[in-house]
Structures are given as C-alpha cells and as structure tokens.
C-alpha cells in the first residue's frame, strides 16, 4: 500500500480534503485500516507543525506543514482509518465525525464515545450526535457521567449548543442517563458541586434538575432517593454538600421524610458534617411530627456525640433529652452514650453533657469512664465532673510549670560567645560555605561569612580557582537576591566580569535592601581590586549582624597600619552594626571616633547632636542625603516624617506608638525573605524601623488576601533572645496574633510566649495595642482568643499576662461589644478559674458596663461573680 499512503500524503499536503476522501472511498475497509500507521504519522507531523507555528507567529513552517486545510484533511483520514483513541487524540469538535462515520462506518466507531469523553468530557455533544444518529452505543459508567456534567454549563455558556431539553427531545434515552451524574463522586474539576460552584444560578444543575422535577421529567421521590443514595456514600464534605443543598431545595414534605425515616437516622452516623447537619434537622422534624422509637433514636444519635461541630452535638443532646423524657428507663444507657461529647473543646458543650449526666443517673462504668475525660476539661466544669465521677479523678495538671523551660528573665548579650560567628579559615570551608549559601538564601550569617571569606581569599590562588570552578556552573542558576549577589561576586573574582544594570534589570526595581546589598557588593569588588586580602569592616562578628566594637577597633587599626581606605558603604554599615558593649575602654575609644577615621566615608559620617539612637550611644550620627544612604528606619536627618497611609487602622496605632521616633514605613525588604532578613541585619541594635515595616506588611494582609509567605521573616526576628521588644515589635506581635494565616499567627504566639518568659516584652503595652487594634476594627476577638489560648497551652505561666491582655481587649468596645467578644470572655474565665486569679478592678469596671447578649452575657455574669 505504499502508493496509496503516498497518494494520501500528497492529498493531505495539498490540504485537499475531498481528494483524501476520494482516495479512501476507493479502498476496502481493511485497506483503509492498513493505512492507519501512515495517517497517524501524518497527523503527528501536522500537529507538531501547528505547535511550531503558534510559537513562531508570522513565519512559515520550514516544510510547509501545519495549515488549517491540511489539519482538516488529515482529521478526516484519521476518522476513516484510525482507531477510536486516534480520533479522540487528533480530531477536534470541528471535525464532522458523524457524516464521515455514516459514509464509511469506520472501525474507529468501536468505543468512540468513551474515547472522546476520556480525552475531553465536553466532547459530549459529538457523542450525543453519534448516539442520536445510531452510530454508537451509549457509553456507560463514570466516563459518560463526567461528560454529562458538562452538558448544562456548556449549553448555558454557548448559544450555539443545544439545550439539555432539546437534547432530551433528540435522545429520549438521555432522561434515564442523566441521573448517572448523581452516582459518581467526580473530582475537583468535575462533580456536581465543582460544576455548580462557579456558575450563575441559572446555569447550575441543581436548579435545572429541580425545574425538571417540577415539570414532571423526574419524580420527587426519584430525586430524593438519588440524593440520599449519594449522601450515604460519604463523599468528602464539598461534594456531599451539593446533595445536602439539593435536598434542601427539594424540600421534602413531612410524608416524604417519614417514608424514609430509617435512611435519615442512618445518615446521623455519616462522617460528613453537612450530611449530619441535614440528618439532624430532618430527624428533629420527624420526632416532632411523630415520636421516633427512643431506643432507635439513641442508637442513631450515638455517633453524633463524637462530632467536632458544637451545634451538632448540642442538637443531638436536645433530641436525646426529648427521648429520655418520654422513656426515662433509657436514661442510664443514654448517659453512657453521651460521654464522648466531653472530648469537645467547648466549655458550653461540656457543661450541657455534665448536666445531662447528672440527671440521667449514670452507672458505675460510665462514672469510671469520666476519669479519662477529666484532664483537659474546662476549669469551669471541673467541680461538676469530679462530683459526677464519685471516685477521685486525675488531678488537673500543675498549672504553674511551663511546658518549655524558660530561660532567665533577662535579654542575652548580643556579644555572647555562643553567638559568635567564626570566620572561614580554610579553602574547604570556603567552598562548602559558598555552596551552602547558593542553596540557602535566607541564612544571612552564612552569607556574610562567605562574602567576607571571598574578599579575604582574594586574589584567588590557582588551587582556590580550581576548587571553586564547579560552583561557577551553578552561578547562572542562582536567582534569589542574597545568594545571587554572592554568585555575582564569585563570578567577578573568577572572571573579572561585572553585571551592570540593563534593560531587564534596573536598580530602581530592586527593594531597598537588595539595592543596598548590590551597591555594597559592587563597592567590595572595587575594594578587593585595590586592597586584596582584607576583612571588610562591616563583616559581622556575631549573629544577627552585630559587630564587636573591640574587633572593629582592631580592624580599623589594621587598615590604618596598612594605609587602606574602606568603602563608604562598608564604613557606614560597620557603624550601624556595632553592638553596645560593657567594656568602658572600648566605648571610650569609640566615642572618640569621628568621621575622619573613615576617610572615604567622610561625606556621610559626621559628629552631630543627640537625636537618634546612634547619637545617644556613640556621640555621633549618620547624616546623609537619602539617595546615598537610603536606609529607612534610621534617622538620617532627612527622613524624620512619619508617613500615614491609612489603608488600615494599624497606621494610626503606629503613629501613637512611635512616640516621636522616626519609623519610616517603606517596604524595605521587598518581597523576598532573604532581603527582609538582610534588612534586619543592617541595624541590629535598633530594629524599630524594621518592625515598623513588618507592622505595615501584616496590617495590609491581615486576612491573607495575598500569599506573602516572605513576611514571616519579620516574625522570626522577634525570637532572638537578645532583642528587647520596643513599641513597633510589640505592635507587630499584637497584629500578627490576629492574622488569618495559621503559620504566622503561631509564630506570633511563640514570640509572645518566649519574649514574656525572657522578660523582653512590656505586656501592658501589648495590651494597649490589642485594645487599640480591636477598637479600630483592624482585628477580631475570635482570632485573639484562639492565639492566646494557644499561648496558654504552651506556657501556663502566661496566665497573668493573658488576664491583662484580655482585660484590655474587652475594653475596646464595651458599649457595643461584638458577638465574638464571648470568645475572649470564655478564655478570661478559664484562666481566672484555672489559676485562681482575681480580675483587676478595671476589668470588672469594663464588665459592669459591657453591653452583650446571649452567651456573652452569661459569661459576663460568671466573671462578675468571681471572688
């Protein structure tokens, strides 16, 4: 058949579909099937050409393949000569499969429906056409169900598509097939829930099926049963949720519900929360209409008492309570069945269970079981459970011992020997260190070690070059800012090449911190050219970027002996990184320094007044134009205005907390964790500006509207034991405790717990910040309650601090207390009871005037009754 294949290829190349069909008409079916390999080869060639053309718009494919006509022609050949899978792979919805199939009755019709739907479920329209034309059998199973799911949204989105009703007219069998959709779970893309979620109500299956029910296409009984079938399968909550909602839409009558009573009772045992909610609602109605057999009800309700959903446990308790009133003989058995509900975290639920237990006369075995539930029960319920247990139950855990051993309550010296950064001494260490930084962009201490070592090892010896050569292969792939700068520095040392800003890479597009790092590295390149083998002045001697003043004095002395001139940035950065030291001689020597020591930095370092942190410490401060030294957070003489960009009420609080200090709110670190951490190392002894940036970052994203994982770098800094938390750091904790992203709020909890244990935080200031943020509507009570509860679990010694913070928090809006204030009141009551603490007078005063209803009012009453 080579001549036929050749003729076919020529016709396809010409894009002559009629010629292709003419050749195929003259062949026997077996001869056509024998051409399959040639046709598939052609189809692949054209597909490849089409891909090439779409990537090279405006050009012609070198071999002239890929035209629309050729595609059209080869698709016809695939339908006639190929298999069902070939048709699914190489044809599109524009291919007239039906007419070709009618004329040729090709082998590809075998399993074509399934193949088309497996390739793309929305080819259902072609499948329906083939079914109506009697060319294929109706597909079965999940593949067909997935196709059917796309029918209605497609018809709604594209007017040229026939409606579902029209399709049913053409294909009466579709009526019986459509409910297949309710029998398969589907997946994230295709299930009834997924399809309906992003559609307007008019395009939703739920509404269409409901209207079909009203028009008599399907009976109510049929759809209710189908819905219950699906709910009984226990699919995940999202997919099951569609059926719960559809059931609600169908609104079965009391009679319809009663007919299916055992099924609803069975659904109480479902593992899916929306299903249990539905079942509880129905069972309540059924029980009200005609009391359900109490023993049956008790058995059906048992699984609900292990639910994590408070409303469901409470609803089940109410139902059981009604049943026990009717059949008191079951009380003891009922008591045993509700004990698992004591594992619920809500003190309310626990209280209700204990009250029922007290009434239902639990037997000895049930009372003994209570001992298992006693540890961890809410303090407000401890007396009740002890009374019920009869026998002594496990005493509550000692509440004064913290879970984590707390260090001494004082901040550690930043120059502590354990925090010393050892310089790299050997070539082996250098190679490993640089390789490590290339792969670990957020370790600033290691970055500084590696950078200093590269400067010190310059000019590189032959051996060093040989050892560093494998790392050069990695340089082009190191893209992150911090490690990227190290990579460029290595490249400069190895090749002498510098990377200049270009069209795609502009200095002004970099974050402040990255820009500073870039200029520092550029300056160091010049430095190694004129003064090789020296330690840069700004190389940290201790973690977090600190420099021991004594070491800096030695470096300066060495520079003076060797007649070296440090770079401007290196000098400035060295001064900013100086740590306070207890050595009076060193401090004296430092105070004696003036800008002249740093000859190259003379323009930007001056003796000055006593306004900023540096001036009070050293007797001088940096005065520089911002374009030369654009380090926000440091008072450089020109940047003293607080910028209030009131996108969130947090800024107002910031302004109050700043108390006259200069806290510029530029996004210094940008959107990279490494850069933010580098920013933190630029002025390690005064981090207020850094934390001010953090406050803005978190305040703008408190609801996690944008995935800004890098912002956690601000929180990491709060954990350093040598850092006394100032107003901005405290405000950052206050905001971060209430952010939505659970990882970040957990970090804030840890920062609070650790800082309090180490005596690094002013809890009163935190309490005031929390109140101000709540009053401004920036944060919510519920999130504070959750975070502070977590803090208490970590360290019970948090109790007094929590009482102060909670007392202040509830004072935010006592006249119109939000509903979730009850979460704070519940925690306050728990802490006060568990630790036997009294409430401060101010907190009592707030409670007296607080306007709150419901659960909040009850808690308020309990708090006021505390001794």
């Amino acid at each position, binding site marked *: 058949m080579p001549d036929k294949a050749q003729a076919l290829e020529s016709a396809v190349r010409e894009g002559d579909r009629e010629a292709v069909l003419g050749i195929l008409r003259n062949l026997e079916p077996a001869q056509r099937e024998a051409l399959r390999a040639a046709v598939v080869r052609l189809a692949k060639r054209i597909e490849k050409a089409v891909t090439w053309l779409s990537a090279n718009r405006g050009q012609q494919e070198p071999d002239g393949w890929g035209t629309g006509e050729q595609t059209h022609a080869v698709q016809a050949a695939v339908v006639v000569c190929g298999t069902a899978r070939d048709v699914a792979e190489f044809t599109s919805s524009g291919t007239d499969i039906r007419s070709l199939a009618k004329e040729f009755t090709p082998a590809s019709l075998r399993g074509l429906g399934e193949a088309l739907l497996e390739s793309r479920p929305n080819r259902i329209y072609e499948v329906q056409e083939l079914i109506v034309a009697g060319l294929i059998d109706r597909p079965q199973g999940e593949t067909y169900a997935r196709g059917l799911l796309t029918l209605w949204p497609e018809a709604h989105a594209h007017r040229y598509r026939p409606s579902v009703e029209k399709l049913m007219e053409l294909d009466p069998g579709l009526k019986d097939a459509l409910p297949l959709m309710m029998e*398969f*779970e589907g*997946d994230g893309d295709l299930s009834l829930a997924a399809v309906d979620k992003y559609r307007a109500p008019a395009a939703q299956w739920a509404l269409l099926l409901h209207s079909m029910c009203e028009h008599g296409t399907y009976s109510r009984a049929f759809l209710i049963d189908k819905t219950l079938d699906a709910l*009984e*399968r*226990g*699919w995940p909550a999202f997919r099951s949720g569609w059926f719960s909602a559809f059931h609600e839409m169908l609104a079965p009558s009391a009679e319809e519900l009663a007919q299916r009573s055992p099924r609803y009772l*069975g659904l109480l*045992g*479902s*593992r899916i929360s929306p299903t249990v909610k539905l079942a509880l609602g129905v069972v309540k109605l059924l029980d009200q209409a005609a009391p359900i057999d109490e023993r049956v009800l008790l*058995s059906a309700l048992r699984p609900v008492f*292990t639910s*994590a959903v408070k409303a469901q446990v409470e609803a089940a308790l109410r139902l059981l309570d009604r049943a026990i009133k009717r059949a008191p003989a079951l009380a003891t058995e009922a008591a045993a069945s509700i004990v*698992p509900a*004591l*594992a*619920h*975290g809500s003190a309310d639920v626990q209280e209700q269970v204990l009250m029922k237990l007290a009434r239902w006369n639990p037997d000895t075995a049930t009372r003994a079981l209570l001992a*298992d*539930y006693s*540890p*961890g029960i809410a303090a407000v319920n401890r007396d009740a459970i002890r009374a019920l247990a009869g026998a002594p139950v496990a005493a509550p*855990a000692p509440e004064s*011992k*913290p*879970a*984590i051993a707390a260090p001494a309550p004082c901040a550690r010296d930043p120059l502590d020997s354990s925090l010393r950064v050892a310089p790299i001494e050997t070539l*082996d260490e250098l*190679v*490993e260190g640089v*390789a*490590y930084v*290339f*792969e*670990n962009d957020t370790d600033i201490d290691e970055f500084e070690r590696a950078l200093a070592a590269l400067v010190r090892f310059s000019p590189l010896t032959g051996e060093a070059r040989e*050892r560093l050569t*494998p*790392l050069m*292969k*990695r340089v082009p792939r190191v893209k992150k800012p911090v490690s990227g700068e190290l990579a460029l520095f290595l490249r400069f040392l190895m090749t002498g090449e510098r990377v200049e800003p270009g069209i795609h890479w502009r200095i002004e597009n970099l974050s402040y911190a990255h820009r500073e790092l870039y200029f520092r590295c550029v300056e160091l390149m010049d430095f190694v050219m004129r003064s090789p083998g020296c330690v840069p002045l700004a190389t940290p001697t201790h973690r977090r970027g600190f420099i021991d003043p004594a070491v800096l004095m030695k470096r300066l002395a060495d520079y003076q002996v060797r007649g070296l001139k440090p770079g401007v940035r290196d000098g400035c950065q060295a001064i900013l990184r100086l740590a306070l030291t207890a050595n009076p001689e060193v401090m004296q020597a430092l105070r004696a320094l003036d800008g002249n020591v740093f000859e190259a930095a003379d323009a930007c370092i001056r003796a000055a007044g006593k306004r900023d942190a540096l001036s009070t410490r050293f007797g001088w401060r940096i005065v520089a134009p911002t374009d030369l030294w654009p380090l926000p957070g440091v008072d450089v003489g020109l940047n003293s205005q607080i910028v209030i960009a009131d996108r969130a009420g947090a800024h107002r609080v910031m302004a109050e907390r700043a108390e006259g200090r200069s806290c510029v709110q530029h996004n210094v670190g940008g959107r990279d964790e490494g850069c933010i951490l580098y920013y933190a190392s630029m002025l390690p002894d005064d981090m207020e500006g850094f934390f001010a940036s953090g406050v803005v970052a978190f305040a703008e994203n408190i609801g996690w509207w944008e995935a800004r*994982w890098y912002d*956690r770098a601000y929180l990491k800094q709060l*954990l350093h034991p040598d850092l006394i938390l100032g107003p901005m750091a405290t405000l950052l904790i206050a905001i971060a405790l209430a952010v939505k*992203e*659970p*990882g*970040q709020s*957990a*970090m804030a*909890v*840890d920062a609070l717990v*650790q800082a309090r244990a180490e005596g690094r935080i002013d809890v009163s200031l935190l309490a005031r910040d929390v109140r101000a943020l709540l009053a401004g509507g920036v944060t919510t009570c519920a999130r504070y309650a*959750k975070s502070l*509860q*977590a803090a*208490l*679990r*970590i360290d*019970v010694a948090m109790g007094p601090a929590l009482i102060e913070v909670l007392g202040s928090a509830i004072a935010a809006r006592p006249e119109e207390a939000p509903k979730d204030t009850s979460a704070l009141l519940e925690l306050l009551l728990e802490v006060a009871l568990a630790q036997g603490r009294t409430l401060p007078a101010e907190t009592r005063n707030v409670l007296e005037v607080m306007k709150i209803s419901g659960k909040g009012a009850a808690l308020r009453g309990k708090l006021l009754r505390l001794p």
Partner: protein
Amino acid sequence: MQYAYRYAAPSSFTEEGRPKLSLATADAGGAAHPYFFEGRLVRPRLVADLLTAVHSIVAARFFTPANSVGKAIALADPVVTSGGGLLRFEGFSSCCSAYVRADLLPQSYRGDIVGKGTTNVDFNEPMRAALARVRDDAGLEFAVGLQEFRLRSSNADVVERKVELPTRWIRGMLEVQSYQAGMSRLFETPAVEALRFFRTLPKASTSKTPLWIARGPNGLFATTRPVGGAVRVTDSSRLRVLHALLPFARSLSVYADDSQQANAWVVDFGEARLTLTLSAEVWRGFSGEGQALWALMQADSGEVAATLARVRAQLQWQAALDAPALARELAVEQFVVEDVLRVLGASGLAGYDVFAGSYFHRVLPFDLSMADELHPRLVDAKALIEAGAVKRLRADPFEADVASGDSAYRVREVDGELRCTCPWFAKHQGERGPCKHVLAAAALRPAAN
C-alpha cells in the same frame, strides 16, 4: 510504569441477610487470587473506618509540584498482607509524602486466617461507599479473597483496571520502611487528649511553617520552635485522617527519627492499629529520600551480602522478624542481621512495624527485580566507582575527589560525617541521605571507619 490490577470479581458489600464485606485480591498480573481470611469482625464500624482511612490517604495528593499539571494518576490499590495472625492494609498517597497502614490484630476478628502472603486488594467505589453504612449493631462478615471453589462458581465479571504507577510511588513504599526502622517513640498520649488537641489545629494547610508538637503539663501543644521531645510536622492537614478515628481509640503514640526527617503516628485501638507516616515536608516524597542507600550499597559485598540469602530463606510471613533470634540461628552478629533486614525493607521484601519495633515479612506485589534501579543515586554512585571517578586524597580524616561530569567535587570527613561540595549536599546537608559522590567515595573509605 503501567500496572494492571486484574481481579476475578469486584470487592463487594452485601446487605441482604447478614452484612458481608468481601475484598477481592489479585497478585501482580492477576494470575492468582489469594484467599487470606474468612470470618466475622468484632468491631465492624472500626474496621470500616480504618479501611476508609487507608483509602483517604491513597486518594490524597497533599502537594502538586509547581509548573506541572497535577497529573491525574489512577489510584493505586492498597496492599494487604496476611501473616502471623495479622491482616495489614498498606497504602501510599499519590504525592508520596504520606504512608498509611491498618493492622488488624487477632483479637479484632472471629474466624480463620486461611492463607499467608501479600497481594493487592480491590477498593472500588461502590465498596468504599458501602463502608460508610457499616454499623456495629448489624455485625459484619468479612472475607479477604475468595475460596477457589467460590471463585470458580462466581459468575461475576473480571475486573481489570490499568493504572500508571510512577516508579517514585514504589520507591517511596520501599524508602519509608528504612525511615520507620530508624524511629524512636517521642511520646504517648490518651486518645481523648489527642482528639481535643487535633481539633485545635488549623484546618488550612501549614506547609510553609513547620509545627513542633509536644506533650507538656497541660497536654499536647504546638509551637513553631524546636523543643525537646517534640515531633516536627509540616502541613497538619495530613493528620486530619486521624480525627475521625481518635474518638474510638485508646491512645496515640508518636515516633520520629533523630533528625526529624519523618514521623509516624500510631493510633492504638486495642484490637487494631493505624500507622500514619509522614515525610518532613509535603513536597518531599519518601521517594526522593535516601535513608536506605547505605544499606543497599553494602548489599553486594561483605558479610551483609553473604547473609542476605540465608535470612531470606528464613522468611515465612512472620508478623515480627526477631533480629537477635535470627542472629543466633544464623550464627552472625546482630548488626549484620539488622543491616540485612534494612536491605530487605528497601527491596520490598519486608515492612517495618514501628509500634512493635520490628520488621515483618511481606513481598510487595510489584516487579521488584529493578529495586536497585529505583534508587538513582545508588546507580550513579556505582557508575562513578566503575568509571574510576573517585580519587582518595587522604585516609584519616578521609578526603577524596570525585569527578562527576566535567566537575570535581571534594568529599571530606568532618566530625565523623562525610560532606560534599556538590549543590545537592549544600541544599540538604545530608538530611535526605548521602549524595552519589559521598556514596561512591565511601566505598574507598578505610574499613576501620
């Protein structure tokens, strides 16, 4: 790797008369349909929940790599092992970051273990859906496999399901055993306490912030700081499968290896246990780890190689392989037997029960002839050795240059550990097992070290 599950009939759940759950089995290729168990379950609902948990993990994908469409992988069927009176159902998540095993102990059933071995078991959708309807009060007959007679007389259709089983899935199944063998117990807590704590964990994924979970005076708590006796977990949503089980459990035991690269959560129900083993990060499937590489490297030479066949001859589907007893019986050192067991685990011939602290015999029902090839680092290291790419520079402390491609990496001994200058080692610092250069260099390390 294309893999076909071929069952003589689908697994089924019948509710007429006495409810019965029949699990269909098939060996690789579908030639045999082992018959393992026939009897009645003591706590039907618990077993249904355990099987559902196994399926939940098998069906889960906790991580989809960036720049790749989450390729829809047809679900692999769980594996069942019968031996020593235990029925064990194992599965693995499709992202390879979570491993699950449900162990039914002899007290969980009334009936007979009629066969021993390992095979696949059909977890079709209708059978899984039926598990949701299982209730204790109705009782439940249970069968794993079908009697030969009933198999012949059954007119049910043969079920054939082809799945694309990535090699990394099988690799993960092998690797997780090595991790488990290196774990020790960190804490045990009553199930009620664990349940209360789990309900406080965030519902959203916390994959970017590792949590350390520890037991303090006030019960369990989570922190983002490493604390003594705590277990490190990323993405606590992987633990959600345990929530539904804890109300019926006695206790929860937590295990981890020394470097916290994996952890195991064992829920004890008395008559059954569920083990959930998680990798250090959701994006780090067990398949990419290399804990077994040292053992596999030794498998071809020395005493381990000599003992391997002798230990294999002792395997008889034991529920616990007792290393000291085997060592006595074979008259070899215990550490040699332990190394051999590690090799068997990494070859798919043994699983590890972290609760019992011992290996058990089971043969994964896949083509295991290419077990070595499933470890690319091992293959590459052997190739480096064969090519003479390793040049020893110093014996003590050990130092060697390894030529790999057009680069030369230095492997050197620091504080007893081998370190390499390659990017892979720089990134993982040996936490994910040795790199190929370290493996190759180690072969030239003096035996005394």
